[in-house]
């Protein structure tokens, strides 16, 4: 959330709505029950949202975690006399462990596969519980479920007479989960998750560790979901596997956030506010034999939302309420107090920053790169040119570690690079841009750069400042608050540059920066590249646009069919007959 004050106000306001409604309606137990259900589902949806919306991993088996919480606290209460308040925490921790253990290896399963696994998990748990009559000697009655002893009003044991007590508890829980969501969203984790959700590989290239971030989200989500399970058990007083761990329950936990706004803090609340009353109304109108009518409506709404308004309610509401303010970042050019490019101790004698030595890589029968050797001195700009298929992008991939070499070495700052992954090499000081820009579509320009700055910043605030500086440097200061999807290609290229720069590299690999940029934006972009160069950064540039690269580079390396055929100052290279031959094909006859 970009407007902290507004967000806090919204949460408090949202939490007060049930309170106010209740005050208006009075103490009628029925309406209280409805409100409790609204808050309950809002709570569960918000807990789900931590992994589903924020991290983009759609679990359709969260009811299983709910069940773990319900059974854990209930068993502890009935058989060990442990107060459900404590049992709740125990259940939460157990669920956190289970959720993490199942989630972590599954995260690499993309999209639908992950969902299928979670369904399988919940089903396994449900069927297993239905079959088990006793667990560790404690009777749980399998499919028949078990009753919790009703002992009147015992707040210390999470039991209240009437609905009022439960109402307050649920209200408290709801405020807690919404606050947790809000805190996560504006924390480091929140930014990482948003980036991962948009483009996991691009995030990894900036030094983010996706598996860790998702695991944390899953653990949090499981913990809170299980607590909801305890509440459910205490409220109903009767738990069965069929009801607590059913697919229907899991699906409802998904439908509400999707309707309300995936990945937003308040989305789950809106979703519950809309759907639960509908459920109650249909139940009231057609009670008894016509079960499941509300599910028809849920299903239809889900389809409608997916087709027409995939963003859900929340963004639509925000569009109505808040005007989009572009937070202007002070357009300071290079700051006086700290140089933008950290001056690394330059090695003496102008030793090469990057040295490629005999590098080779082939793909099946096709040669990618063969015995390639060249150097880049600190502060130099070297351009790589050549026809399509000459191996240029392969060279970049080999240097950044995205591809492993068959032979030869890459030396960076005097150190030979071996098995380091792209994000490790990024931390060493090698950054790159991609030919097809990959901004984090759902984030603003500023947030995009923040993701790059966060791994090296001490706090979110510091990362924000850093990001602002880089944006300004790239000429995008006035667009800091714009969502990346709203940026033009030229702006996106600048964003990509700012993001790469924010990782504080010593060597920057630029892959076809001018590709696809319209004529008007081109000069500005080239000026920016010259600006980066002026900062003292070392550049290795792939370019098809010969005009651009001859103006920018100190030296050119020409590749053809994976081999270096020429190297030298731009003017000399471009008029060299061998090079011309490659481009033009046979020396043009004169006269």
């Amino acid at each position: 959330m970009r407007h902290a004050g507004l967000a806090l106000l919204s949460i408090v306001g949202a939490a007060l709505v049930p309170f106010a409604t209740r005050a208006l309606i009075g103490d009628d137990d029925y309406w209280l029950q409805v409100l409790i259900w609204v808050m309950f589902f809002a709570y569960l949806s918000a807990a789900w949202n931590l992994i589903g919306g924020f991290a983009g991993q759609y679990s359709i088996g969260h009811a299983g975690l709910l069940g773990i919480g319900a059974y854990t606290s209930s068993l502890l209460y009935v058989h060990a006399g442990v107060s459900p308040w404590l049992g709740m925490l125990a259940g939460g921790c157990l669920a956190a462990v289970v959720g993490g253990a199942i989630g972590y290896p599954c995260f690499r399963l993309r999209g639908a596969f992950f969902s299928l696994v979670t369904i399988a998990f919940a089903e396994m748990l449900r069927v297993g519980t239905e079959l088990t009559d006793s667990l560790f000697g404690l009777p749980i009655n399998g499919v028949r479920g078990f009753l919790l002893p009703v002992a009147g009003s015992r707040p210390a044991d999470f039991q209240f007479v009437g609905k009022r007590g439960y109402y307050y508890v649920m209200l408290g829980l709801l405020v807690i989960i919404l606050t947790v969501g809000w805190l996560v969203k504006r924390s480091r984790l929140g930014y990482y998750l948003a980036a991962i959700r948009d483009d996991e590989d691009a995030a990894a290239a900036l030094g983010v560790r996706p598996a860790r971030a998702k695991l944390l989200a899953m653990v949090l989500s499981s913990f809170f979901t299980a607590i909801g399970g305890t509440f459910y058990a205490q409220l109903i007083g009767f738990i069965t596997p069929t009801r607590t761990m059913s697919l229907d329950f899991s699906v409802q936990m998904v439908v509400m956030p999707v309707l309300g706004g995936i990945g937003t803090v308040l989305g789950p609340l809106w979703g519950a506010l809309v759907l639960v009353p509908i459920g109650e109304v249909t139940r009231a109108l057609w009670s008894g034999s016509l079960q499941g009518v509300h599910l028809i409506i849920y299903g239809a709404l889900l389809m409608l939302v997916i087709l027409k308004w995939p963003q859900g309610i929340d963004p639509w509401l925000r569009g109505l309420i808040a005007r989009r303010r572009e937070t202007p970042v002070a357009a300071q050019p290079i700051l006086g107090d700290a140089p933008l490019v950290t001056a690394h101790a330059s090695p003496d004698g102008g030793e090469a920053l990057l040295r490629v030595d005999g590098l080779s890589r082939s793909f099946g029968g096709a040669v990618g790169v063969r015995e390639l050797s060249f150097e880049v001195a600190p502060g130099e700009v070297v351009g790589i040119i050549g026809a399509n298929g000459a191996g240029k992008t392969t060279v970049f991939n080999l240097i950044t570690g995205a591809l492993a070499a068959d032979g030869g070495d890459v030396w960076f700052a005097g150190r030979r690079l071996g098995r380091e992954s792209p994000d490790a090499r990024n931390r060493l000081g090698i950054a790159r841009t991609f030919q097809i820009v990959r901004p984090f579509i759902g984030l603003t320009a500023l947030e995009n750069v923040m993701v790059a700055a966060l791994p090296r910043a001490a706090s979110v605030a510091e990362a924000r400042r850093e990001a602002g500086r880089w944006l300004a440097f790239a000429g995008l200061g006035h667009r800091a608050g714009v969502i990346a999807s709203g940026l033009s290609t030229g702006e996106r290229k600048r964003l990509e540059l700012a993001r790469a720069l924010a990782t504080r590299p010593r060597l920057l690999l630029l892959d076809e920066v001018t590709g696809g940029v319209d004529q008007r934006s081109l000069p500005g972009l080239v000026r920016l590249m010259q600006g980066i160069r002026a900062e003292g950064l070392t550049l290795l540039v792939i370019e098809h646009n010969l005009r651009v690269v001859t103006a920018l580079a100190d030296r050119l390396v020409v590749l053809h069919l994976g081999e270096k055929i020429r190297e030298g100052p731009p003017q000399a290279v471009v008029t060299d007959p061998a090079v011309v031959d490659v481009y033009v094909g046979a020396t043009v006859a004169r006269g």
Partner: protein
Amino acid sequence: MLAVDNLAVDYGGYVALSGVSLEVRTGEIVCLMGANGSGKSSLLNAVSGLVRPAAGTVVFEGRSLTDVPTYRRLGLGLAHVLERRRLFPYMTVLENLLLGSYLPAARARRGEALEQVFRTFPELRARRQQLAHTLSGGEQQMVAIARALMSTPRFLMLDEPFLGLSPRLVAEVAETILRLNVDGMTVLFTEQAIHQSLITSHRGYILESGRLVLSGTSAELLRNEMLQRVYMGLDLEAP
């Protein structure tokens, strides 16, 4: 036969072509040259409908193609062989050819077309049960062209037909193009290597960063000293 006017193509902001106009007259072979990223493929894609132009028109045999969906264009006599061949990888050569004659009109003439194709590319007959992804680059190119011919088009577009081929194969493909043209086919193809393109065509255009920078008959272009300098990025204002 084909007239492209003021065409602009962009992929969500990525400007591939702007303000490009060219034409291909019936019976001609025209080549479109340029480096990678110059927009050659985008132009062909706009003509065959794989991409919707952001601006401009494409007129084929007097009829505007603006509202004609891609899958209808083959029926108009316009065939497109994609860059890197793009055969259906897990289907045999024969199945690929059969798919080339999916359209009802082509289906009727299928047997004849198949015979014709096997005569033009004799090696394919022996390989017809072979899975497409196991073929070499040159063989794939032959199959791709053969597949396009199965619907007996009048206008053939080839995207980088010489890419990745050995000089001998390049000569073979070039010869095939010339032969087809002699038999009445109008051809538009793209290429990076200027010399080869110019000796295989009547006229040529040169694209750079999405704009046309030079055009003329192939003979003129071959003689043009300026061509080399333009192509290598010299002599035009630096940005």
